């Protein structure tokens, strides 16, 4: 689309949008003077505008704040936490990320789970996670992972 054409669409869109819905069709028809492509373009934009409602009205960081956090999948690979050297990402879910790590004191492999940041912002969920971890660590069975 040339910039003149874009400008034309733009201006016409504004004038049509300012009118009450019942007047729009007649006004647009007259303003286009037989330019069918122009009429269709403006008509389709007006229709989109009417359907758009709340689209992009709330800022992105309100809609998907998760995307601004540190929860990047695999971000911990290569890092060390206490005596654990994190080697690779095993799994990702809504409840966090699980990494394969090496316990450098005991020389064994362990799975480390990291909660999503949205959980750590909430004390209730954080304490629930802690009691789950305590419950799991009290169990000792070959088929249950030790915590």
């Amino acid at each position, binding site marked *: *689309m040339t*910039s003149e054409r*874009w400008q034309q669409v*733009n201006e016409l*869109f*504004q004038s049509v*949008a300012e009118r009450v819905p019942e007047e729009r069709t007649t006004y647009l028809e007259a303003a286009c003077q037989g330019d069918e492509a122009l009429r269709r373009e403006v008509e*389709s*934009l*007006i229709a*989109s*505008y009417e*359907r*758009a409602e709340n*689209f*992009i009205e709330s*800022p*992105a*960081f*309100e*809609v*998907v*704040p*998760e*995307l*601004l*956090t*540190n929860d*990047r*999948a*695999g971000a911990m690979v290569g890092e060390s936490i206490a005596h654990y050297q994190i080697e*690779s*990402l*095993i*799994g*990702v*879910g*809504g*409840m966090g990320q699980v990494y394969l790590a090496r316990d450098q004191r005991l020389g064994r492999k362990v799975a480390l789970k990291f909660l999503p*940041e*949205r959980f750590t*912002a*909430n004390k209730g969920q954080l304490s629930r996670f802690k009691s789950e971890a305590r419950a799991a660590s009290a169990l000792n069975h070959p088929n249950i992972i030790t915590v």
Partner: protein
Amino acid sequence: MSPFLPFHDTRLLADWSGGDNSALERLIPLVQPELHRLAHHYMSREAIGHTLQTTALLNEAYLHLVDDPKRSWQNRTHFVAAAAQLMRRIMVDHARERRALKRGGGAVKVELDDAALVTERRSEELLALDEALEKLAMLDPRKTQIVELRYFGGLTVEETAEFLQLSQRMVEREWMMAKAWLYRALSEANDI
């Protein structure tokens, strides 16, 4: 609030406004703490019925910079624009990573609960919007900038108008058409 990290080199901003995109990349670690604060605010219960003023947050960060006599940071305009653009970049990069992980996967197992599925859908929408904005920028850079400032930077119509030295009426008009155009672009791509 946590203090905004001082810029090691204020020339980064000058470089960025001079068209050097890697300068923007180097700004990321410097503004990230503030952005995390913003993200946590919206993810916690505090956010209900209480809106954190993004502009206030950016203003504090900016004042922190200009208060430092060693810095020659004079241009608030560039700062706000850079912040909005950075937020767009960071969010889009994260959304891309999520998509790559879901599609490529490799040995990684991805499990999604309801909350994660919602995030998934919204981050896909964000990517589609980003692509549409790229196209809009070729037709009308000013509309794209208005969307960037408002949608990614969180500025109000009044703030955007002041910032771009336009009337509020003009910002509203530009916003209307940008919104219609982008909504159509996304509907065509995804049949929403």
